[in-house]
């Protein structure tokens, strides 16, 4: 069972510093975890990938992240709606935690996949295929991604022994 893919805007390969780095991560923001649980399979330059696409380098597979979703809303109307303006407003007299349905951050380590894609030059797109791993009668298993995931490719220069 698969939801609708997310595909990023093209990222210029020239902007990706993969020389002399030992680890490259792809970081995602605004991943919705309010609904179904899912595996996010990350593919580079393969927007047509789906749950049947073999997760191997030839298909641009870069790695997976996993989301333990809340399973939809079991409260009254509005219970799971996040008021972004309220969340942004920092009130020093409000000790409550942030809304537990705020979108979350996820990342995958994708060193070789990014190196391979960057070496080909041109532009890179990041596609995430959401393969459903948990659901309830309250979940929408199609529209898993509610926001732009704003993928960021982050390269680390690390000492090696």
């Amino acid at each position, binding site marked *: *069972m698969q939801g609708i893919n997310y595909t990023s805007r093209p990222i210029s390969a020239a902007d990706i510093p993969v020389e002399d780095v030992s680890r490259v991560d792809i970081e995602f923001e605004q991943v919705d975890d309010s609904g179904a649980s899912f595996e996010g399979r990350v593919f580079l330059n393969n927007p047509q990938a789906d749950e049947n696409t073999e997760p191997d380098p030839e298909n641009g597979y870069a790695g997976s*992240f*996993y989301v*333990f*979703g809340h399973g939809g809303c079991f409260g009254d109307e509005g219970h799971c709606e996040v008021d972004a303006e309220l969340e942004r*407003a920092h009130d020093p007299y*409000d000790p409550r935690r942030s*809304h537990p349905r705020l979108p*979350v951050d996820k990342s995958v380590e994708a060193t070789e996949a990014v190196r391979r894609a960057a070496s080909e030059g041109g532009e890179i797109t990041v596609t995430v295929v959401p*393969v459903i791993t948990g659901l309830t009668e309250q979940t929408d298993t199609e529209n898993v991604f509610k926001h732009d995931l704003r993928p960021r490719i982050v390269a680390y220069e690390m000492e090696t022994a």
Partner: protein
Amino acid sequence: MADGLVLRKRVDALSASELAVLRNAYAKMQAITDNRGYNYWAGVHGVPQHYCWHHSSRLPRTGPSLNLFLPWHRAYIKYFELALRDQDPNAVLPWWRWYGGIPAAFTDQNVDGSPNPLYRARISRPNANPPIDRNTRRFPGQGVSLTLPTSGEIARLYDITQFQQFSNRLEDIHDRIHGWTGGINARGVGGDMGVVATAAYDPIFWAHHCMIDRVWYVWQLRNGVNNIPADYMDRILAPFRYTVRDVLNINALGYEYAVATA
């Protein structure tokens, strides 16, 4: 055990009498409908109280982005264990060593002619919307292309020295195990472990999180008990009477693990 610490053991290492004690405590908790009971404590995690911490997020109301996944669940299972021991003072939470699938202690439907309280529990939430009133469901490995982690995969986590990176990697594996354990049956019905809302009602949830806690403990042995960002220390782990600082040393919480390697 020395200093009154309780020893949390691997599920498969429990003696027959230790397992009987655990079952007795679970059964008693499941029969109680007030705030000493199983439904109350399961409801702290998801429906209806939603206190649990998972993943890190932006737009925080009370400061920078943070992820209290590990310390919050350490506090949570400690409180659950206390409630369990209120029912049988010899009961101790065991940990589920994931690599061999679900232990028989949690898959036997009946024991000595009675329903096994480790196999399933009743979810009774008449005020949820929609209401929930049924037994827990579990379809391990069905309808999902997930696998349980290998011991090598867990061992590699111990080489990570930075807390947030370790926590995020372990949580990713945790999320995967929830999906595998819940599963989705042929009619498209999801198992309860697969989503936050109902996961803690499945009796295996507590052994799963005991293992998560143990992996963090082993990591702490290698990388430092207080290896956590300074701005985490005084965060309150609501609704429990602990801050992050309070839960870093498991001996100070009154327990220990039998084996210190994965």
